[in-house]
C-alpha cells in the first residue's frame, strides 16, 4: 500500500516516539516537493531525509498537469459555501491520491471535507494519524494490549488531540476502551 503525506501530517507524526510504525503500514510514503519545502525543523527534516535515504519515504515530483488539477481543486473548494478551502500542497496530495489510489495522509480538515463533499474525490482514502495508528495496531505493526495508551502517547508527544467520538469508535473496534 502506498501513501502520500502532506505537511500537517508529517510535522506532527515526526514527533511521535513510534513514528517508524508508519513504514510497517505503508510500503512507501510519497512526499511532494512542495511539502518537503515546508519542513523546517532539524528534527523533522533529519527524520524525513534519513527515511528517504532508506527508501521508506520517497520524493514525489509534481508534474504541470497535476499542479493544474490541484489549482483547480483549490478554487473549487472555495466555491462551495461552508466547505473549508484547501491550499496547494494539500490539493496536490488529494489529486495524487485520486490518480494513483494512494492513501492521503493529512491533518487538514479542508482535505477531509473535500474528500467527503466533492463527488470526484469521494473514493479517495484520506487518513489522519488516528487511522494510521489504528491500522498499525490492527495489523500488529504496533503490538499493544492497551491501544488507548498508544493513542495517548501520540497526543502527549505531538500535542495533537483526537476528537473523542472518533477515538472512542476506533478503540471500540480495536477492543480497547478509552
Amino acid at each position: 500500500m502506498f501513501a502520500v503525506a502532506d505537511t500537517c501530517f508529517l510535522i506532527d507524526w515526526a514527533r511521535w516516539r513510534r513514528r517508524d510504525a508508519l513504514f510497517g503500514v505503508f510500503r512507501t510514503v510519497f512526499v511532494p516537493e512542495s511539502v518537503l519545502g515546508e519542513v523546517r525543523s532539524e528534527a523533522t527534516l533529519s527524520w524525513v531525509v534519513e527515511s528517504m535515504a532508506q527508501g521508506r519515504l520517497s520524493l514525489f515530483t509534481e508534474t504541470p498537469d497535476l499542479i493544474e488539477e490541484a489549482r483547480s481543486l483549490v478554487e473549487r473548494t472555495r466555491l462551495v459555501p461552508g466547505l473549508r478551502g484547501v491550499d496547494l500542497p494539500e490539493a496536490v496530495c488529494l489529486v495524487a491520491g485520486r490518480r494513483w489510489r494512494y492513501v492521503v495522509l493529512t491533518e487538514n480538515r479542508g482535505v477531509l471535507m473535500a474528500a467527503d463533499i466533492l463527488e470526484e474525490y469521494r473514493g479517495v482514502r484520506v487518513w489522519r494519524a488516528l487511522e494510521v495508528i489504528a491500522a498499525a495496531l490492527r495489523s500488529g505493526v504496533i503490538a499493544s494490549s492497551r491501544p488507548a495508551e498508544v493513542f495517548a502517547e501520540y497526543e502527549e508527544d505531538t500535542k495533537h488531540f483526537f476528537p473523542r467520538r472518533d477515538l472512542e469508535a476506533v478503540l471500540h473496534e480495536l477492543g480497547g476502551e478509552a
Partner: protein
Amino acid sequence: MAASRWLELEREAREVRRRMADWDFIRRQPLRVRLALEYYIETGDLYVASRIAGVTVEEMNELRVRANIPNVA
C-alpha cells in the same frame, strides 16, 4: 545484471562517497545543505539531494564537488 550485483555496486559506491567526503566541510553547512550532502553520500541521487537543499541540480553538483564527494558512476 542480477539485482544482487546492482546492490553490491551501489554499496561500493556509497563506501567510496563516504570515505572521500570532506566531513568537516559538510558539518559546517546550513541544515538543508548538510542533510542534502549526507543524503547524496548515502544514495548518489543528485536530484533529490537538490530538492532537499532547495537549490538547482547544477548548484547541488557544485556543492558535491566542494564537499569532495565523487560522482561514482
